[in-house]
């Protein structure tokens, strides 16, 4: 009896155990790893992406995918930088950027939901289009000359905890709540699992789907603000490939690619997993080419472990 319980426990928390194991290994291998400074560095590094990953997780749970997040971040980033550089007050610029994100999400989500299209292709097209637009309006050069105050949004910290990490925590708290305790959050699960049944149960499928994209893209706007503040300029090439990082984080964290299942907490674990790995490899001075190989192999392993866990669970 007790034996079974231990096994169950191990199976249920295997990803956490692997994570702890990784942390221990890295701590032993490098004395710089488990310092407060480095831990905050890692958290800070996943923070902006993790806000994008909230939206991505919601979209995947709803049975869709969004390949355009990276391009939306870049587009919003250059728009924000241009607004601020041209003298628009910081707070107005921030609100505008988040709104623009929301409008983009309204387009991609609306088209996907109304025309019953596959979001893969819709967002693939938007990914191309918005990256191109970001480059067109800036002529390929990053936009600098932002107000000094703006840099503080990302750079400051309180009691040793970077603002970026606090934002991440706040956003996750809010969205974990939304996913669990609001009708909207529950509808996302229902739609992702069985759209037809959800509709028959009186859920407004189109509206929920569109809203998920709106939220996700607005979060891209938020991420764009933070990123722009972090690098202190609006760079049209920024956030390249973030869609894949966000998707990987969500899936490593146990979100079902087919929709209907997933937890935001898992996504953070997934991102941490990748973030710690990347950090550890830099600390250990792994060859730049091999980093990519090792990252691939470790994700591979994580996936396999994850699947064994799921199977043991059923």
């Amino acid at each position: 009896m007790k034996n079974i319980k231990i096994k169950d426990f191990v199976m249920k928390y295997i990803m956490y155990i692997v994570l702890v194991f990784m942390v221990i290994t890295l701590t032993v291998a490098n004395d710089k790893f488990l310092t407060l400074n480095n831990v905050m560095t890692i958290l800070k590094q996943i923070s902006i992406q993790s806000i994008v990953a909230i939206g991505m997780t919601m979209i995947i749970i709803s049975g869709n995918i969004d390949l355009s997040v990276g391009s939306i971040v870049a587009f919003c980033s250059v728009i924000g930088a241009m607004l601020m550089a041209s003298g628009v007050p910081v707070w107005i610029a921030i609100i505008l950027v988040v709104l623009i994100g929301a409008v983009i999400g309204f387009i991609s989500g609306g088209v996907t939901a109304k025309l019953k299209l596959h979001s893969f292709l819709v967002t693939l097209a938007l990914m191309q289009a918005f990256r191109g637009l970001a480059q067109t309006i800036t002529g390929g050069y990053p936009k600098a000359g932002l107000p000094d105050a703006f840099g503080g949004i990302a750079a400051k910290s309180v009691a040793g905890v970077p603002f970026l990490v606090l934002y991440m925590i706040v956003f996750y708290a809010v969205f974990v709540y939304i996913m669990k305790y609001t009708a909207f959050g529950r509808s996302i699960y229902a739609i992702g699992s069985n759209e037809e049944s959800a509709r028959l149960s009186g859920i407004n499928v189109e509206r929920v789907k569109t809203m998920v994209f709106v939220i996700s893209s607005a979060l891209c706007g938020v991420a764009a603000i933070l990123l722009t503040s972090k690098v202190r300029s609006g760079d049209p090439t920024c956030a390249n490939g973030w869609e894949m990082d966000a998707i990987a984080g969500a899936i490593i964290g146990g979100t079902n690619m087919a929709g209907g299942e997933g937890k935001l907490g898992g996504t953070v674990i997934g991102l941490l997993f990748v973030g710690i790995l990347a950090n550890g490899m830099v600390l250990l001075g792994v060859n730049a080419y091999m980093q990519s190989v090792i990252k691939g192999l470790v994700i591979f392993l994580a996936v396999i472990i994850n699947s064994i866990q799921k199977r043991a669970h059923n």
Partner: protein
Amino acid sequence: MTETILRAKGVSKRFGGTLALDQAELELRSGEVHALVGANGAGKSTLIKIITGAYSNDEGHIYLGDKEIHVKSTFEARKLGISAVYQEFSLINTLSVAENIYLGKLIRRQYGPIEKIQWQEIQNNAQKILDKLESDIKPEAIVGNLSVAQKQLVEIAKALSNDIKVLIMDEPTASLSDNDIENMFKVIKGLKEKGIGIIYVSHRLEELPIIADRISVFRDGRYIRTMDIEEAPKKVIIENMVGTSMVETKRKPCSTDEVLMEIKNFSSGTKFQNINFLLHKGEVLGIAGLAGAGRTELVRAIFGVDQKDSGEIFIHGKKTVIHSPADAKKAGIGFITEDRKEEGLILNMPLHTNLGMTILDKLKRIIGLDLKKEVRLMEEYIQSLKIKCRDSGQKAHNLSGGNQQKVVIAKWLATEPKILIMDEPTRGIDIGSKNQIYDLINQLAEQGMGIIMISSELPEVIQVSDRIMVLAQGKKTGELDNQEVTQDILLDYATRKQAV
């Protein structure tokens, strides 16, 4: 007291070339159970879906009380007090039972701008409804892990959770065991007393006298007549359904002594333990038991779908290793699954492609596949099994439930198996077709096939089988000869705890 609460007048519906409903009529009084009967494809489900707003009608009017209504979605219907238990489940597999019951109407409280779902309350309410049905399903269980029967109960609970004036149930008992049916009938009677009108679709004609007050018969999309239940014995109903009277063929046993298959020592965790039995050439072996007895699990393990802990299979005395359905098929076994939508058919594909799936190796030529043969075979089965469809190229999705079931049967007959396992083969099939299937089983047995048939309808098991094995809680509690069996004896064995 017996005012009309729902009326459908002159309702027609066309799907492409098929006229599914042709000037259909229905009149439901408050406090009555109004049975809707008709052969597969008669249009019952279509009428229900029109009433609940899942489909729109081409012609006709629907009145609630004396007001005409035009519902555009099931949600609207629900707000008007019309709820339905559909033939196809509308549950969300990844969510809990309680959440499914309250989906679309989750109980919330508002704290300023912030809403909060009251999970505890939802859980408690769900528990109350399940208690009324005397079901032991846990509100926190994940629906995807439930058996078909349990899902059916959740579906019923979901409809009951609404504020209802009219309750529509499309074949709710098709996969329920007698025990659950009894409990459900108790609940229905309670609703009747509250003046709720119930439309009740079923192919199990024998249960109608117990539960129904009046009965309306449909044939080929047309309304035939409405009768009080007292003036409608089974014979009369059938005559109205099919247009002629029907003779039930009595089964001629043709079992031989030649052992076709022997199952030894089959065990799998808590699902079933130490099951042994023989199947003879030309024999029909029935497997009876209550829901959850482990019948489906046993045959799935035999067919190689699920892993087992132990057990051996001998076919013609030769030990045969079966690890997958592919192995089983090679060994000459066919398996008609319980769940036609998820396990039996590929709904978005034509009928002939569905048939071809099991016989790809038979269609192989030196190069390529004999696709003409596939179509020809399907068309033969459409004839012989009287499958109601446009042609063999129609998508399985567009067939009525009973006709889909026949396609599943066809695709396994096409493999010409030596042993055929049928798990609830007549679920959702009309009485006429049922008799066809019984005839078919007879014929196949006569040709020397060994047949294992699982059925939750005890009269059916008794009528069709030569021998009956009874399972209870994963154990084999009895093996009975057809001659000595009555329903009561079977029930007695099905509730025993001791293995034989």
